[in-house]
């Protein structure tokens, strides 16, 4: 009996490895996608290891003698007006920015899946009510909506996550609902209905798995959007409270010293642009792999 279980486990693992290998074979053809994946992995790794990598404490270590200093061996990216090390602030900022966007997107995707599944599968009045709400929320431009929410909630990190999640959830709900509607009428789902399969079986075994690839593609894109949104919010002073570093915050600080200390604005900007670029490349690669229509 145990033996059987073990082989089953091995079989499952083998299957997964086989799938990953098949994925990699196709995915790796696109060099740009691989490059994007590398960037994203690199940034995530840095975000996780930031406390170990940062040579200075981004908030506490104030080098008064070296305020607004050029990049040098001690301060790779220079220092800001308080003499804080920009390199350390950018590293720690990665952690903050990534944590915010990952949480916001994950939460909004989760909400979106639930609403989209219910709305798309159940249909009728439930669909009507939910989609009216979703349409209502979507009639505000995302960033302005987030600004309004932040103004109402007050700025701290938790609230940014909440605001962005609220702003993005309707978009995910729409996507999931759309996919559910298209999958629901596929003949293989009808075949299960004819057989008498339960709603639970149809929803979770047949419909949900088919929603995951478009969802994954959209999540990648929205990670990028969320990073941009967090930076925008922080940049106008509505994001992560000072002196906590986030990429947007550092840019905000550097604004006044653009002429004399361009490095304060250049480095976090590069960090944002590179991360977003990586996510976009990865998203394009996933789309080509998962969504054959776009080829």
């Amino acid at each position, binding site marked *: 009996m145990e033996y059987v279980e073990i082989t089953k486990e091995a079989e499952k693992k083998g299957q997964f490895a086989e799938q990953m290998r098949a994925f990699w074979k196709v995915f790796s053809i696109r060099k740009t996608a691989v490059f994007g994946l590398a960037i994203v992995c690199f940034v995530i790794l840095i975000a996780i290891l930031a406390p170990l990598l940062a040579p200075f404490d981004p908030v506490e270590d104030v080098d008064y003698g070296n305020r607004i200093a050029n990049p040098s061996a001690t301060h790779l990216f220079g220092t800001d007006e308080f003499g804080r090390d920009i390199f350390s602030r950018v590293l720690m900022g990665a952690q903050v920015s990534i944590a915010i966007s990952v949480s916001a997107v994950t939460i909004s995707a989760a909400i979106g899946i639930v609403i989209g599944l219910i709305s798309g599968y159940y249909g009728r009045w439930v669909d009507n009510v939910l989609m009216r709400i979703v349409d209502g929320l979507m009639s505000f431009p995302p960033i302005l909506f987030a600004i309004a929410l932040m103004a109402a909630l007050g700025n701290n990190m938790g609230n940014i996550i909440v605001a962005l999640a609220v702003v993005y959830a309707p978009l995910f709900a729409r996507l999931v609902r759309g996919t559910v509607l298209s999958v629901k009428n*596929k*003949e*293989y*789902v*009808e*075949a*299960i*209905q*004819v*057989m*008498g*399969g*339960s709603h639970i*079986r149809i929803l979770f075994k*047949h419909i949900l*798995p*088919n929603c995951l690839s478009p969802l994954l593609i959209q999540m990648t894109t929205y990670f990028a959007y969320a990073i941009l949104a967090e930076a925008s919010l922080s940049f106008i002073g509505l994001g992560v409270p000072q002196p906590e570093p986030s990429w947007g915050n550092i840019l905000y600080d550097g604004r006044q010293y653009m002429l004399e200390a361009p490095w304060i604005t250049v480095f976090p900007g590069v960090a944002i642009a590179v991360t977003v670029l990586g996510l976009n490349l990865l998203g394009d690669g996933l789309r080509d792999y998962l969504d054959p229509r776009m080829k």
Partner: protein
Amino acid sequence: MDKTPLLELHDVKKYYPIKQGLLRRQTGNVKAVDGVSFQVYPGETFGLVGESGCGKSTLGRVIVQLLQATAGEIQFGKKGISTMSAKEKLAFKREVQMIFQDPFSSLNPRQKIGDILEEPYCIHTELTKHERREKASELLQKVGLNPMHAERYPHQFSGGQRQRIGIARALALNPKLIVCDEPVSALDVSIQSQIINLLEELQEETGISLLFIAHDLSVVKHISHRIAVMYLGNIVELATAEELFTNPQHPYTRTLLSSIPAEHPRKKRERITLAGEIPNPANPPQGCKFHTRCPYAEEACKKTVPPLIESNGHAVACHLIQ
């Protein structure tokens, strides 16, 4: 054929509401199926032919309960579907299966063939994983595929092979009736005949009833015992296959038969060409729905709907025949 019918339809209708305007108010109905009655007996193949938009596929979906009939009664084995309890409904779903037109969308691309074939057993039986696997490989052999194929995914098969898998899935629970919705129209000629032969063999073996929906008259003629011809949601003629093709009565049936391309260059038929196009089913003509295109239409045809009247097992709905 004096046995008790397996499936009986009494005046079944399926209307789709047309909603228009800002408030999505219902402004009318598309009468996809507009009062259809017939019986299917055990062991027989009942053909349903008609051109696109005649309601034949909708009717098939109503019978397997993918769609709810707007009116009328469907009886399966003496029991009305509308009066069935949840348990009886589940039993019904075990005994009636369906084969779909498109062999590419009828199999879940993310499931292995084995899993697709095991699914009916997961729903209706308490078999163990091992027993289900056995069953699945038996099914694969039954439809002429290699049991090793259970480990593959649908995209690794050709259209004809996928259709075989669809048939295997429909056979899994030993149903009494299979609704076949254009099962061969997406396939190449040489593959078509393989699938038709397979269906015939399986019927001989298991005594299953088939409701065969198709637009290809020669295929329907070949496989069916009795055939119903549909036009705009109604049956216009119903007879045995031989009778229908040798002695067609309804003007529409005659047109259809004369439209079939010749089998041999020297056997070209005299063709009856229809005027105009199929009317919009949202706004069908009054009286006999065929009168706008019928070469023989009279005053009476424009006013009253001809009933389907049977004599000697050959039923026709036409004022000019009665």
